[in-house]
């Protein structure tokens, strides 16, 4: 019997009142791809931090490859061959890719390390993501979010002084489009069949089912199921997580929309002859491969309709960020303040914020979007990634905005909450709100009334009603050059 690459025994972690982990056992052996799933705040990122040494469990132990347990912390984990792609992007954006590699791999020393590193990265990057167009000598700050994620993944698979034994991937595909995600998963399968091991966290169950050899399900800080992949189906997995699968709620074409007033009308660009039009009560999807101008359009739309100088009219437009750290959360603030900031005017009398009103709104949305926290006055950073995203959602939906812009807002949101949010969106749209929704997930695109497909910064196709399908979207995404 081989010793496991890493063994976590009886690990418990608490953050103040929150018990993030309670007595978790987890062993990962060589040649294994462990899929880790669970609702937002189940404790997935916490166990990742325990394994990579960033967090010492308050009870229990971690050991690496049967090594003597003298060493602890990050250096022990790294010596044990553990590498980790974190949920939030964690490269230094002011450094070049090569310099980031130097920081990540202590083995890259000596004369000419830059050259060696560059060669290693270029090879690895095209191995994981064949056909990518990332400039490996660039500064990370100049890369798009997807490219950064690609680089970070490649850097962790890098073989500098010995190949990695365990690579942890915490929601690695959340900023990758489906094509890139598939390339990455293929590489994971190859890596595992070559004897490496992987811990993969994702809310997209298809990825877990197609890639893992074993699935561990977590709920409220504990492991509730751990079985080989063959014993799970999509449905049973969701049930194991504690959510109920609902039928797809596509209601068909809503013809009433054709007569309702237009709220957004972007004229056609001469290049493709297509513009964007949104009517009252419509849910508009923005599709296409990641990084082709969808975010830019949403940012421009918001800037256009809100003043940088005068107080904003919250009944006009609201924005849900996809990149929390960059343009979403206010890290010094409580959850409540993060939620209420979008609509302070309504909570105030004579420019003075009314605490009771604020608490009421907080309580209402905590319940509506199931934000997992004992107290809305706790700091926002005490929430798990997915729960932070829910707060951003609630911030926008709690305003009376006629138009809601959503920049891939479901990144890292668990399946149960997603379905709740979908039905909220539906209901709000029926009540007359317009949603412009950029998503990297095809399921979400298929929920929209009308879809615009982007390519190279412009709209290349408009699909409505029954034309909205995975096949048509993909066809439009790749057909741009021919047209």
């Amino acid at each position, binding site marked *: 019997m081989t010793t496991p690459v890493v063994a976590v025994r009886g690990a418990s972690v608490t953050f103040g009142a929150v018990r993030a982990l309670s007595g978790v056992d987890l062993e990962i052996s060589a040649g294994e791809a462990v899929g880790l799933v669970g609702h937002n705040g189940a404790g997935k990122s916490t166990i990742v931090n325990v394994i990579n040494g960033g967090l010492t469990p308050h009870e229990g132990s971690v050991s690496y490859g049967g090594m003597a347990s003298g060493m602890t912390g990050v250096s022990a984990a790294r010596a044990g061959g553990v590498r980790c792609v974190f949920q939030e992007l964690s490269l230094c954006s002011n450094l070049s890719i090569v310099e980031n590699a130097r920081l990540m791999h202590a083995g890259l020393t000596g004369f000419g390390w830059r050259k060696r590193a560059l060669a290693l990265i270029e090879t690895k990057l095209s191995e994981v993501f064949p056909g990518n167009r990332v400039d490996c000598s660039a500064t990370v700050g100049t890369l798009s979010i997807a490219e950064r994620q690609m680089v970070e993944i490649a850097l962790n698979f890098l073989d500098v002084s010995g190949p990695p034994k365990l690579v942890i991937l915490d929601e690695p595909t959340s900023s990758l489009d489906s094509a890139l995600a598939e390339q990455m998963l293929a590489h994971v399968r190859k890596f595992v069949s070559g004897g490496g091991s992987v811990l993969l966290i994702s809310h997209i169950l298809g990825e877990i089912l197609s890639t893992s050899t074993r699935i561990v399900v977590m709920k409220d800080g504990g492991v509730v199921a751990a079985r080989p992949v063959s014993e799970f189906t999509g449905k049973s997995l969701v049930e194991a997580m504690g959510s109920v699968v609902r039928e797809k709620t596509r209601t068909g074409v809503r013809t009433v929309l054709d007569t309702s007033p237009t709220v957004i009308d972007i004229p056609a660009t001469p290049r493709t002859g297509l513009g964007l039009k949104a009517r009252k009560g419509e849910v508009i999807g923005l599709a296409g491969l990641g990084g082709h101008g969808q975010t830019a359009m949403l940012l421009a739309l918001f800037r256009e309709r809100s003043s940088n100088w005068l107080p*904003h009219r919250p009944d006009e437009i609201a924005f849900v960020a996809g990149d929390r750290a960059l343009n979403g959360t206010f890290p010094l603030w409580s959850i409540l303040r993060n939620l209420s900031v979008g609509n302070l005017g309504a909570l105030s009398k004579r420019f003075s914020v009314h605490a009771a009103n604020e608490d009421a709104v907080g309580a209402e949305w905590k319940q509506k979007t199931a934000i997992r926290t004992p107290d809305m006055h706790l700091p926002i950073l005490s929430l798990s990634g997915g729960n932070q995203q829910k707060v951003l959602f609630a911030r926008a939906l709690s305003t009376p905005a006629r138009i809601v812009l959503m920049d891939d807002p479901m990144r890292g949101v668990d399946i149960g909450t997603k379905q709740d949010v979908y039905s909220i969106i539906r209901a709000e749209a029926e009540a007359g709100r317009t949603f412009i929704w950029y998503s990297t997930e095809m399921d979400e695109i298929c929920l929209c009334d009308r879809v615009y497909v982007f390519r190279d910064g412009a709209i290349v196709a408009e699909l409505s009603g029954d034309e909205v399908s995975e096949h048509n979207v993909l066809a439009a995404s790749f057909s741009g050059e021919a047209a």
Partner: protein
Amino acid sequence: MTIFNTALSKPWIWSWLAALATFVLTVLFTGGASTFSLGQATLTFAAFSVIVGLGQMLVITLGPGNVDLSVPATITLSGTLALKFMNTDASLILPGLLVAIGIGLGVGIANYGLIKLLRIPPIIATLSMSFLVQSLAIWSNRGLRIKPPDELSAFTTGMTLGIPNIAVVGLTLSVAIWWLLDRSIYGRWISAIGQSPFAARMAGIPVDGTRFLTYVICAVLAALCGYLLACFSGGAALNMGAEYLLMSIAVVVIGGSAVAGGNSNVPGIWGASLFMFLVVSMLNTYGFGAGIRLMLTGLIIIAVIIAASRRVSAR
């Protein structure tokens, strides 16, 4: 509610404790005889630091790199021009005040103009502006000291119920700024901008409008301080603001406001202002030479900030 609020209100405690300790040490030197008069002197002079410190605090709350270095020059210019305008005529006291406020408005607008239109980092923009403003002060009056109207001079040096009038003014302004910061929407806005301007913009906050207003408020408070200080000390001098460059920044940071922006408090400004005056008085009282005095001042500041830091990180 309570957990969050008490945690937030802690950073300023330390500047108050430090002020209290220095006060006691100073008073002990004379066996307690000087308690009352020292208290009055402290309140008076601390009030000037408070008035400029409040404005500086709002600016610093806007986030890293935001600081107004034109404060000293604004103090000088408003003192000079207001006194020149009033020319000891008591009937012009109010118009003189308006002149001072107008100067504050002008400098604030110009500061933000440079920051926004030319995209110059605030530190450098306000530094450049301070040179221009200082030149304006030199050119307008060439350093001649004009006396304030007697009534005004009596008011600024006078007392109400044993409390210096200047301290009353400072207190009133503090309450107003505290309301702005803690209760008003504007306070939420500057805090949000201080944490992440981009996120603030996407949350619908008028970032430019708020920042503009903040720089203007800061300059107006500095101008107000210049007006009062010139009247208090019997005339404007070209170097009257120089003291307040480091002072305005020091009282903000010693008072426990986060230098990284987003988080600030008004009581700390008072604690730190009282402390900054008292520490010099204490060291003067004990008769230390300039070298030792400077060194001790520095070490005490660092000690206070280290003591305060334990609280901050526990938050």
